[in-house]
C-alpha cells in the first residue's frame, strides 16, 4: 500500500516536471538564439560620444576658435501620447514656435529634427520634460570667442563639423573631431551602465597661429573706420614682424569666411611697387645714387603714348624720384635695366609665385614674361601698373627691405601639433637674399624721405622714424578695356621704426569713394594703426615728442 502511494506521488511529481522540463528545453535550447537576440536588443544600447574639433589659438595662447559639445534634439511623432498637449511644452523648452512644433508632431515620419546645436540650458530643460519620443544626439558647435575677429582668415566649419574655408579647411584633417561609440547596458528602469570602458582617444591637436589677437583687433578697428569712411569694394590690412616673417594680423573687408582678399585678391600695386623697381636699379648698378634723371613731362615712352607725373618736375635725384613718386623717373631707370633683369628682380622679391602659407584660394599674382614685355609694358611695370600682386606678396617684399634684404617665408602657423612655440622667437625662414645690405640701406633712406617730406607725410608717427611708400593705381575697366578714371586702388606699405623695424604694415583699399589717393586714404590708416601698435608693443619713441604743456587745473 505504501509502495503504491509512493509511486503515485512520484508519478504526480513527474507529471508536473516533465512539461516544465520540456518548456525549458524549448526556450533554453531550441529558441535560445532568437530569444537571446531579443533580450540583448532590449538591454544593450550604443551611444556616440564626440571628441570636439581642435582649437585655434593665437601666438599668446588666446582662443580664436573652439568647438564645444552640443546636442541636437529629434522627435519620433508616433511615440507621443498626447501631441496636442506635449507640443507646446516642447516648444517652450526649446524656444521654438508652437505651431511649428505642433506640425512636426503630426508628421507621419518617425524621425523629425526638432532643433540642432542646443545650448546646455535647452538640453537641461528638455531632459527635465522626460518625454517619450524625444531624443538627443551628441553634436559639436564651433565658437569664436572674439566674435568675427579674423573671420576671413579662420574660415568656417560646416554643420557636419568639417572645415569649409580658410585655415579650418587647410588644417581640417588635423583639427577634425572624432566620434567614439560606447556600448551600454540598460536595466528595466532605463538606467544605463557601460558594458566596456571607452578606449582613451587622443583629442585633435590645437593649431597655434602667429597671429596676435590684440594686433588683429587694432587692425580690424582701423579697417572698420576706413571702410565706414570710404566704402571700398574690398580692403585689407596686414601686419608682419619683418625679423621672423610672422604674420601678426590679417584683416579684410568684406567680412566673409569664404573669402580672404589679403591672399586671393591680386591688384595693380601702383607706386608702392617703386621701392622694388628702385632696389633692382640700385642692385644692378644701372644708376649712380647721386645721379639726376630728367623727369620733365609728359614723356613719350613709345610713339603717341605719354607718361605723366602727378606734379611736373625737372631733373630729380633717385631719392627725389621716390619721395615725389615720379613715374617718368622710375620708368626711365627700368628701361635702362631691361626686361630680363627687371623680371628677375621682381620674381626674387616673391612676386608672381604663391607663398608657402598653403591657404586655399591664394593667388600668385600676375607677371608678364620678359619676352612678351615691350618698352611700354616695362615702363608701366616700373611704377606698378600692368602687373598684379597680392597684399601678402607686397607685405613680404617690404619686410625684406625692412630686415636688411632677406625675403622670409611668411609664417602663419607656429604649430599644428598642439605644442606652443615661445612667442618671442625672432628667427625666420629665409627664402633668398633679394638685395645687398648697402642697396637696402639706401632704399630705406629713400622710403624715410617719402614720409618725411614726400607723398607719405600723412603716414608720419610723432617720435618715430617711418619708412614707406604711397600707391595710387588706376583699375582696369573690363568693359572699355582701358584704365578707369573713376576707380583706383589706394595703398600704403611701410615699416616702423625705420631704424630698427619691428612691424611691417600694408594697407590696401580698393575703389574708395570720395578721395582716392594713397596719401589721403591709406597713409593715415597706416599712421593711426602704427601709433597704436607701437604703444601696444611698448616700443619707445626714438626722439622726444613735441611737448604739449599740461593745462591741468591749478588746484589739485
Amino acid at each position, binding site marked *: 500500500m505504501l509502495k503504491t502511494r509512493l509511486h503515485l506521488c512520484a508519478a504526480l511529481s513527474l507529471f508536473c516536471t516533465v512539461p516544465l522540463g520540456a518548456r525549458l528545453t524549448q526556450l533554453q535550447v531550441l529558441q535560445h538564439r532568437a530569444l537571446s537576440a531579443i533580450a540583448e536588443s532590449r538591454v544593450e544600447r550604443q551611444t556616440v*560620444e564626440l571628441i570636439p574639433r581642435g582649437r585655434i589659438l593665437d601666438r599668446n595662447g*588666446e*582662443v580664436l576658435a*573652439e568647438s*564645444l*559639445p552640443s546636442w541636437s534634439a529629434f522627435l519620433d511623432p508616433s511615440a507621443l501620447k498626447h501631441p496636442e498637449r506635449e507640443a507646446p511644452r516642447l516648444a517652450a523648452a526649446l524656444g521654438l514656435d508652437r505651431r511649428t512644433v505642433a506640425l512636426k508632431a503630426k508628421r507621419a515620419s518617425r524621425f523629425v529634427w526638432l532643433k540642432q546645436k542646443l*545650448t*546646455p540650458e535647452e538640453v537641461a530643460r528638455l531632459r527635465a520634460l522626460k518625454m517619450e519620443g524625444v531624443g538627443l544626439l551628441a553634436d559639436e558647435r564651433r*565658437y569664436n*570667442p*572674439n*566674435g568675427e*575677429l579674423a573671420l576671413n582668415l579662420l574660415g568656417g566649419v560646416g554643420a557636419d563639423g568639417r572645415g569649409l574655408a580658410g585655415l579650418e579647411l587647410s588644417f581640417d584633417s588635423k583639427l577634425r573631431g572624432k566620434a567614439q561609440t560606447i556600448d*551600454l*547596458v540598460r*536595466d528595466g528602469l532605463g*538606467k*544605463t*551602465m*557601460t558594458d566596456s570602458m571607452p578606449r582613451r582617444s587622443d583629442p585633435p591637436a590645437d593649431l597655434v597661429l602667429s597671429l596676435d*589677437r*590684440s594686433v588683429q*583687433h*587694432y587692425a580690424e*578697428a582701423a579697417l572698420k573706420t576706413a571702410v565706414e569712411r570710404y566704402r571700398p569694394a574690398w580692403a585689407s590690412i596686414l601686419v608682419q614682424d619683418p625679423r621672423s616673417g610672422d604674420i601678426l594680423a590679417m584683416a579684410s573687408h568684406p567680412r566673409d569666411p569664404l573669402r580672404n582678399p589679403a591672399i586671393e585678391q591680386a591688384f595693380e600695386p601702383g607706386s608702392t611697387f617703386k621701392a622694388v623697381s628702385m632696389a633692382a636699379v640700385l642692385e644692378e648698378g644701372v644708376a649712380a645714387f647721386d645721379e639726376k634723371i630728367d623727369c620733365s613731362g609728359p614723356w613719350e615712352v613709345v610713339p603717341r603714348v605719354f607718361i605723366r607725373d602727378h606734379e611736373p618736375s625737372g631733373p630729380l635725384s633717385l631719392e627725389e624720384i621716390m619721395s615725389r613718386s615720379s613715374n617718368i623717373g622710375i620708368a626711365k631707370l627700368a628701361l635702362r635695366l631691361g626686361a630680363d633683369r627687371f623680371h628677375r628682380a621682381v620674381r626674387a622679391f616673391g612676386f608672381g609665385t604663391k607663398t608657402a602659407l598653403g591657404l586655399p584660394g591664394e593667388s600668385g599674382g600676375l607677371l608678364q614674361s620678359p619676352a612678351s614685355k615691350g618698352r611700354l609694358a616695362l615702363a608701366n611695370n616700373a611704377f606698378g601698373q600692368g602687373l598684379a600682386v597680392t597684399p601678402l606678396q607686397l607685405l613680404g617684399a617690404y619686410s625684406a627691405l625692412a630686415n636688411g634684404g632677406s625675403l622670409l617665408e611668411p609664417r602663419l602657423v607656429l604649430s599644428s601639433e598642439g605644442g606652443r612655440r615661445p612667442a618671442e622667437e625672432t628667427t625666420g625662414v629665409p627664402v633668398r637674399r633679394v638685395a645687398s645690405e648697402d642697396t637696402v640701406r639706401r632704399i630705406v633712406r629713400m622710403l624715410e624721405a617719402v614720409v618725411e617730406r614726400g607723398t607719405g607725410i600723412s603716414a608720419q608717427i*610723432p617720435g618715430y622714424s617711418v619708412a614707406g611708400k604711397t600707391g595710387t593705381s588706376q583699375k582696369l575697366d573690363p568693359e572699355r578695356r582701358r584704365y578707369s578714371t573713376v576707380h583706383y586702388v589706394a595703398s600704403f606699405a611701410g615699416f616702423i621704426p625705420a631704424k630698427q623695424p619691428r612691424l611691417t604694415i600694408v594697407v590696401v583699399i580698393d575703389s574708395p569713394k570720395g578721395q582716392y589717393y594713397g596719401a589721403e586714404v591709406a597713409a593715415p590708416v597706416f599712421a593711426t594703426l602704427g*601709433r*597704436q601698435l607701437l*604703444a601696444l608693443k611698448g616700443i619707445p619713441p626714438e626722439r*622726444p*615728442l613735441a*611737448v*604739449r*604743456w*599740461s593745462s591741468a587745473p591749478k588746484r589739485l
Partner: protein
Amino acid sequence: MKPVRLAVWIGASIFFCAWQRIQATRLSFELEQRRRAVLEAKSRNSYLRLELQNLHSPESLAASARQHLGMLPPTADSLIVLGENHPRKNTGPTLLSWLAPSLRP
C-alpha cells in the same frame, strides 16, 4: 565534513556570489552616472570658459571701457611729457620738503 556544514558553506558561497554580483551591477550604474556627471560638468566648464573668453576679447573690453568707464584710446596729443624746462618742475616746495623740518629728530 558533515553534510550540514557543507550545506551551510555552499549556501554562504552562493549568497556571497549573488551579493557580489549585485554590488558590481550597482557600482557599474553608479560609475556610469558619475562618468556622465563628469562629462556634463566638463561641458558646463567649457561653456563658462568660453563666456570668460568672450568677456576678455579686445572688442568686449574696449566696449566695456568705453561704456562703463568713459575711457577712450589715447590720441597723439594725449601724451604730456614733463621735460627739463617745464615751468612747474622744481619750482616751489613739495609736501615732503614742507614736512621735513618737523620730521627731523
